[in-house]
């Protein structure tokens, strides 16, 4: 780490301003995300609600009204018939598990056509759905707690709080997206949210590591400059890693097919927002909490030449 010249200082101060602005934006995003989730709720998938989902392939000439009418006759409940991408491919969804729903779909559709290919079908009892939802919440909580424990062990609390806020920000944003679009929220999406948890921290920690390093190396430097220089030093790494991860998740989005669509969208958004938040709120909160070199004085300085 060498002397920072005037040019550098100037670019650092513009970076600091940019960080403050983006933090403000992040704060707004967080608040509106919470509002969206409170208002809209989620479109819980079969995994959590229980019910019956069957995907079939039939003659493309058959219309959805014909199918829903036929299915409605056999069952007392409402049945949704959704097109699954290509013509003739339908997703049939019953909210409740009953005899009409669990019966053989081929016999139910027999009046329309005899050529029915069942691609997949899931029957989940209401009890299981509830349990999975509880388990999912538990997983999220357990992961958060473990991460909290690790962060408080590894970093000083002021620095850790920035990473935590960034993480909360990212998860809330992705959840709000699913709430707003009412895309189905199933177990795979939950897995994506947990993966985002890990990924978001990844970015924040790399920057926090740098902040700590600069703090120790240059105790006299102003906190905002330290944070900005840490962001600057890690910036190209942040961009490259986010870039490659976005490429691969993008590939998954394009090629992965319907079952992985939600997952890739969640990951894609999570990585983008995670990159932003690690720079914005991730560094601004520790600054606000006045993280200082003294907080790290006990650490032996071995790195400086």
């Amino acid at each position, binding site marked *: 780490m060498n002397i920072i010249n005037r040019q550098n200082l100037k670019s650092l101060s513009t970076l600091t301003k940019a960080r403050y602005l983006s933090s403000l934006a992040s704060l707004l995003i967080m608040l509106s995300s919470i509002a969206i989730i409170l208002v809209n709720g989620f479109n819980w998938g079969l995994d959590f609600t229980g019910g019956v989902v069957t995907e079939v392939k039939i003659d493309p000439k058959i219309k959805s009204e014909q199918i829903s009418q036929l299915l409605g006759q056999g069952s007392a409940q409402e049945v949704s018939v959704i097109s699954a991408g290509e013509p003739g491919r339908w997703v049939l969804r019953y909210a409740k598990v009953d005899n009409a729903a669990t019966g053989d779909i081929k016999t139910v559709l027999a009046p329309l056509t005899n050529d029915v290919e069942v*691609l*997949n079908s899931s*029957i989940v009892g209401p009890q299981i759905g509830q349990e999975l939802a509880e388990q999912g919440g538990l997983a999220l909580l357990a992961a958060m707690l473990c991460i909290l424990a690790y962060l408080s062990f590894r970093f000083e609390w002021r620095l850790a709080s920035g990473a935590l806020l960034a993480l909360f920000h990212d998860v809330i944003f992705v959840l709000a997206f699913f709430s707003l679009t009412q895309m189905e929220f199933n177990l795979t999406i939950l897995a994506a949210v*947990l993966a985002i948890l890990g990924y978001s921290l990844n970015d924040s920690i790399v920057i926090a*590591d*740098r902040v700590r390093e600069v703090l120790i190396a240059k105790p006299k430097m102003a906190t905002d400059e330290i944070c900005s220089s840490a962001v600057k030093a890690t910036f190209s790494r942040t961009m490259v*890693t986010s870039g*490659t991860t976005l490429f691969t998740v993008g590939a998954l989005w394009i090629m992965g097919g319907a079952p*992985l669509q939600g997952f890739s969208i969640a990951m894609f958004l999570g990585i983008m927002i995670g990159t932003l938040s690690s720079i914005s709120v991730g560094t601004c909160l520790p600054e606000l909490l006045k993280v200082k070199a003294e907080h790290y004085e006990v650490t032996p300085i071995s790195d400086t030449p």
Partner: protein
Amino acid sequence: MRQQNSPTLLNHYSAWKYVLLIVTVMVMLFSALPTFFGEDAAVQISPEAQLKVNPLELHQLLISNGISVKRIDQSQGDTLVVLGDNSQQSQLKTLLTSQVNDPSKLTLTLAPAAPNWLLYLGFSPIKLGLDLRGGVQFLLDVEIEPVYKLHYSTFVDSVRQFVRTSDLYGVAVQYQVDGSVNITTKDLQQRAAIRDFVSQQYPNWQMSNSGERGLSLDISDAEKINIRNLTVTQNLQIMRSRIEQLGITEAVVQRQGEHRIRIELPGVQDPAAAKSVIGATASLAFYQVKQAGSVNAKTLKDEQGEPVYVARRPVLGGEHIVDARASLGEMGLPEVVIHLDRDGGRMMSDFSRDNIGKPMATSYSEYSRDDNGQIRQTTEVISVATIQAQLGDRFSITGAGDYDEAQQLALLLRAGSMTAPVTIVEERTIGPSLGEENITNGFSALALGMGVTLLFMGLWYRRLGWIANVALMANMILIFGLMALIPGAVLTLPGIAGLVLTVGMAVDTNVLIFERIKDKLKEGRSFAHAIDRGFDSAFSTIVDANFTTMITAVVLYAIGNGPIQGFALTLGLGLLTSMFTGIFASRALVNWVYGRDFSRNVKV
């Protein structure tokens, strides 16, 4: 590159590290290879099935029926028909049914397509999850309450028996609805006597005094857990033997959570057949038939809905049944021949000796779940027969319907009698074509993501980029190799997503190191020194950054279900292997190629 003697041994890895690296990667490569050859669906014909035709004729027959056969292997009497088209497996099995004497000995299986020498080395392909292979998955709920109830009622009976034989007048034994037993006595001596009896005969019961002369009793919590575990284990065994009868070698029967059983049947396309065998929980019981209006009688219905009055307790429950076979009896009527265990045989023998000439009813109970999720037991008397002679441990019952129904009943009984009702609470079917589609989609996403990443890293870091690329490829080899080696590791569709994600994130390790090297070069160090400092200073950041993702992977694995566990597995393994290749393997490469380059102003 400039060769120069350095005062210290900078960037030096000893030979054993290179040997370790190369050996590891080679072993993993061999382990990963069979997966790329894939597996072919096959049907195994065991010697007991007694194939009626020779392999050549069989081949002709199958071809003429439009089945594409890859090869027919015969070894030690076993015949294996390997298919060229995986979707024809059930079609093939149906066709083979007419060509063998015992169709129940036909087994659906998979044959690795890898060359034999690889298989001889002990390597096998990665196990694919149901979402990639197609098949049916069931989640069963084992209802423990009825088992507890049985324990309570046996206990109450036994205490009442004791009260009667010890002439303890005025003692009332009551089974409470909330699941405990209350005893009221007339004096403290009576209470002490009952306490003695219970603590001797039922050490697993908890007792506490209630009121002045009362006793409150319940099964201890430890014993309840013990009972639950025993019940679930017994049901697991039963399910395994039932699945065996379906002839699927790769089936998975596992306990999940406290009282659930997960069954995976790869390759099964029609859940109905499997369901009827798994889902039905049948139990047989034999009752003494009583007169209408008798004191200790309960009413059961027969097939016509006519009431049959039977004794409250069965003479014998189905848990004593060792074997059951359908056959045609003397009158040409279908019957089920039942073979009892020793205890059951003695009980039946005692009972029938005393009741020759009297009728005995056989009841058949099935458990199902109604719309509200409540367990419903339907019991039907399937036969009332007069006891002709003293029965032993082997006898037959009639009245189960036609021969097919008798066979079905025998199958259910043979698989064992359920002491706890089991219901299907989740059922998932994935058609084989969707499985194939998922594999194609997943792997093309992996290929595209990998290609773009390799290209980008090569262009961005140039000199060091190819090192990152070699490390990334080694990383993939390691993950695939490990997935094939680890027992119980299953690749699922979310698992492939985890792989794709790993590709993107694995380069991070190298990126962190390379950026540090760039920094050090800017500070004016030589390339070799920058490499040394760069690797060292990036290390703790790499560990920190990977650790949090590892936490989520572990949590996901611990709490998730099948497909999600697949994701957690590839994500977690990917982190470990990317640390290995990103730090160790790429350092080895860098040391070897650029380690002695002491020139300054190097652009990377």
